[in-house]
Structure formats: C-alpha cells, structure tokens
C-alpha cells in the first residue's frame, strides 16, 4: 500500500461568541476516524460535500497538518515527521494554493522547481517536454503567471507537480472553475499520466464527470467519516440506483407485473411507463414488454451519478 491511514482524525477548536464578551470553545472533528488503503498505481476519487473533510485529509497525508489522532503513512513515510523527504516523492496541486511564482514567467517557475527538488537536468527536460506536448504549454510558457488564465495556470500547476517524477499525485479540485475545454485537457492529461503507470493519483472533486472519466475507485466522505469505499458500480448497487427502461406505448398501460423489473412511474395518461431493472436484463424486459403491449418507442437510461451522490449526502 502506498497510502495507508488508520483512524485518522483532525479536531479543530472553534470559539463561538456567546453573549458580549464570553466565548465558548467547541471541538469540531473535521476528519473523524478515516481508514484508507490505496495501492500503487490506483486512481482514486475522494469525494464529499463541502466541509466533509476532504482537503483536511489530503493536508494530513501531505504533512501540512498534524493529525489529532490516528496514523498515516505515505510512501512508507510519516507525513509530518518526514515532511521534507516525503515532499520529494509526492506531487500536490491544491487549486487555491499556487506553487508557481506569481510575477515570473511560467518557465522560470519550472526551472526554480528543478533546483528545489534537485532533479537531474535530463529528467527534468524530458518530463517538461512531455507535459508541454500534452498540455500545450508552449503558447504561454514565457508569460508571467499572474497574467495566465485559470485554465493555463492549472496546466502550469499540474506540470509543476509532476516535474520531479512523484510517486503519488494529490489533486485537490483540479478542475474547479475551468471551462469545458480546459477541464477536458486536464482529464485527458491525468488519464494519460495514470495509463503510463507513473503515479498513484488521489483527487478530490465536485465534478462528477471527473469521477466517471477517471476514477475506478471512489471514497465518499461525509462529516469526516468514510461512507463508501468501492467502485462506481458498487455505489449504484448499494444505494439502489438502477438502470431504467422508458417505454412509450400506443395504448394505455394495462398494469402488468414483469419479473425482474419494477414499475416506478406511469406518465402521459398511461402511455409512458418507467421500469427499473431489478435483476432482469434490459433485453428480457423489452422482450416481455413487446409481447404484452404495443410499443412505440423505447430508451434505456443509465443511473445518474449526481442522484446517487446527492442521496448519499442527504443521509445524515
């Protein structure tokens, strides 16, 4: 396991005003006993609503925050105690915290980072060349970072995080605020990095397309606790999201029961019926339908991940 966490917890003391001068202390657990085991080469989506504890977890795994309790190991190292050694072996993109020099051209940040991470010149050049090709950095490499668009800057940040050849890449909302094209570029780039088997990737996101395109495994966190750890399909299975057949009929729905399917709605004066697949295949249900009623039109709808996640978040 390249990343391991057991019972990881982070408490914050919050002072709330009571009355005029008095303040009451409250302890809030931003992360409340998280267990994680992530293998080398995995690409994992770490998701949850705002304030669920995603960023706090990443900050504990990268050595920025000291855990209140529990144990974390990344690349076999203890993040806070061995922060400097670990920093050489991980790459981090925290959307709001730039690693770039604001007033200098992007290219200068890259060469500074080469000195900071003590990367051999040849390795650095090779990685930079690859990132330049994949992310189209040429156009703006000589532009001061403060003049870059958000999408350009994010491409710069991703490159900065990869130039030292990290074993693990932590990305905190890498696509937040980007336009469609930039999002796509970032996703394709990450997929490519993952396919090349260079780094284990952990990313937090609110963008469900990121998850569908990139993440084989999802860890969903809410109120500081892990509420789901598994594949997207497992998430659907567990929270009862099913594929649905929508059939438009030439006559009113006669109110049949079909084996392995469940009628979830009858609409349009009985001329449209929705059936959730409950064990049967789409083919079986369609065949049974075609025998029983005059079919006009038919579509199969995949479950919406938004719905599943929204339902997950609402469970308190």
């Amino acid at each position, binding site marked *: 396991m390249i990343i391991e966490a057991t019972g990881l917890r982070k408490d*914050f003391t919050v002072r709330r005003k009571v009355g005029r001068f008095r303040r009451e202390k409250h302890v809030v657990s931003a992360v409340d006993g998280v267990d994680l085991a992530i293998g080398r080469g995995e690409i994992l989506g770490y998701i949850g609503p705002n*304030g669920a504890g995603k*960023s*706090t977890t990443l*900050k504990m795994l*990268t*050595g*920025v*925050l*000291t855990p209140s309790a529990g144990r974390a190991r990344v690349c076999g190292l203890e993040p*806070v105690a061995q*922060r*400097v*050694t670990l*920093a*050489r072996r991980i790459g*981090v993109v*925290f*959307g*709001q*915290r*730039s*690693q770039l*020099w*604001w*007033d*200098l051209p992007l290219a*200068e940040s890259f060469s*500074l980072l080469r*000195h*900071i*991470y*003590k990367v051999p010149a040849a390795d650095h050049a090779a990685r930079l060349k690859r990132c330049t090709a994949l992310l189209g950095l040429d156009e703006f490499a000589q532009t*001061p970072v403060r003049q870059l668009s958000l999408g350009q800057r994010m491409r710069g940040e991703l490159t900065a995080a990869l130039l030292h050849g990290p074993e693990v890449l932590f990305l*905190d*909302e890498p696509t937040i605020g980007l336009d469609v094209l930039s999002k796509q570029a970032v996703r394709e780039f990450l997929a490519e990095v993952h396919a090349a088997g260079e780094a284990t990737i952990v990313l937090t996101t609110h963008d469900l397309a990121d998850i569908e395109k990139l993440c084989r495994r999802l860890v969903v966190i809410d109120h500081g606790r892990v509420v789901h750890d598994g594949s997207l399909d497992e998430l659907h299975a567990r929270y009862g999201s099913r594929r649905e057949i929508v059939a438009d009929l030439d006559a009113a729905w006669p109110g049949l029961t079909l084996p392995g399917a469940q009628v979830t709605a009858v609409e349009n004066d009985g001329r449209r019926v929705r059936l959730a697949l409950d064990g049967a295949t789409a083919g079986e249900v369609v065949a049974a339908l075609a025998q029983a009623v005059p079919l006009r039109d038919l579509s199969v709808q995949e479950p919406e991940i938004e719905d599943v996640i929204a339902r997950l978040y609402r469970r308190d």
Partner: protein
Amino acid sequence: MADLGVYLHIVRAQIRSQTQYRMSFAIDLAASTLISALDIATVFVLFSVSGGLGGFGGPAVLLIAGLSALAFAIADAVFGNAERLRELVRSGGFDALLLRPLSALAQLLAVNFAPRRVGRVVQGMVVYGLGLAVADIDWNPARVLLAVVTPLTGAVMFGCLFIIGATVAFWWVESGEVANAFTYGGRDFTSYPLTMYGGGFFGRFFAFGIGFAFVAYLPALALLDRPDPMGVPDWLRWCSPLTAMIAVLAATALWRVGIRHYRSTGS
C-alpha cells in the same frame, strides 16, 4: 545548509519578481536610501548637541547606538520577512511552503526577501564604524574579535525575536503588532546605555530577562574597558555568543511546536 544554493535561487527569483515592477522598485530603493541618509544625519546632530547619556560620553554612546543599529539592520534584512508569516497563516498560503522539500522557516525568509532592507545594513555599518573610530578603544586581538562578532550575535538575537514574534501567529493569528514591541522596541532599548533605564524591574527584565544587555551595552563596555556603573560582573560582557545560542534554541523549539499547531484554512 547544504541547501544554501537552493535558497539563493529562491532569493534571486524574489529579486527578479520585485524588479518586474520597475517603477515601484526604483521608488522603494530611492526612498530607503534617502531615509538611511537622514537617519545617519540625525545621529550626528544628536551627538554633536548632547554631550552624553547615562554617564557615558558622546563617543561611547555612538558606539552603543552603532552596534545596536548594525545588529538590528542585519537581523531585519535576513529575518525581518518572518513577519509575513501572520499573513500566510491567515490566508493558508503557508501550505505551499510546507509542500516543498525544504525547511519551511528558511523558505519563509527566502521567499519574502526584501532587497531594500539591505540598505539599512550599510547605514548601520557607517554608524558603527564611526563609533569604533571616535571611541577610545585599546585594541588587542580579543577586542578585534569582539568588535567583529558582536554585530553578528546581536543580529542573531534580534533575528530570534523576529522568529519568535512571527511564530506566535500559529496560535494567535490576530497577534498584530505585539511582536514589534519586542523587535523595534528592542532596537530602541539597545541603542542607549543601560544606565539610562535605572534599576527598575522592566529595565532589568528587558536587559537580562530577554537579553538585550548582551546586544550592545555589555560588549561595548568590554571594548571600552570600562567598569559597569551598575556592578554587572565583567565576565558577562563576553557572553553574547552564549546568549545568542540560547535564543536560537528557544526560537527553533518554539517554531517546531508552532508548526504543529498550523491549522491551514478551508479550501
């Protein structure tokens, strides 16, 4: 210290960043040169008018003022940027420093390096050089060494104060200007002979509790070969390196604890 080259790269990048704004950089530089020149003029005027302070003659007072000014200027140039920590802790920008494979403290100093502060060092050197020239010093090897080392030990002590003052931000983000009472206050305190403050509690606390007596006053007594009117033992005058070391231990210990209390910010 093996990383010194890396920090120099960061400092150079910082200077390049500042020179991006040419006009602002030029005005900054001109203003600080002017202020330095005026400061030196003020010192001259003061010492040509007043005969002396706290039982010390003009040349001795100038020597003490020069030692204090040079020590403070070096500390300000190297460690003064530590005060930016408060801002970085509040904004969460400190994260970025913790994510790099370098000492966070050294980065804090290098990343915020302000070239204009170096001008003050030159000013300090002028005043200190003048003090050494006009004071009646019976030179021997030990005194030469003391004259060279004292501005550095003083700078280390002020530097530790800068760091301790900044570190408070890990617990108390709204610490505001409290730390300045000790750093800038310390500069003013150490500029004059200790005898001026009398033997009250605060005088003693600042002089020996915090160690300000070791920045300029006690080493100056050793240079001048004068007894202390307040009866401080002679051997203490040579102890500035020791007090500087204690300050370094205290500052690094506090920093280590403080960094574990860093809370970052939500993002």
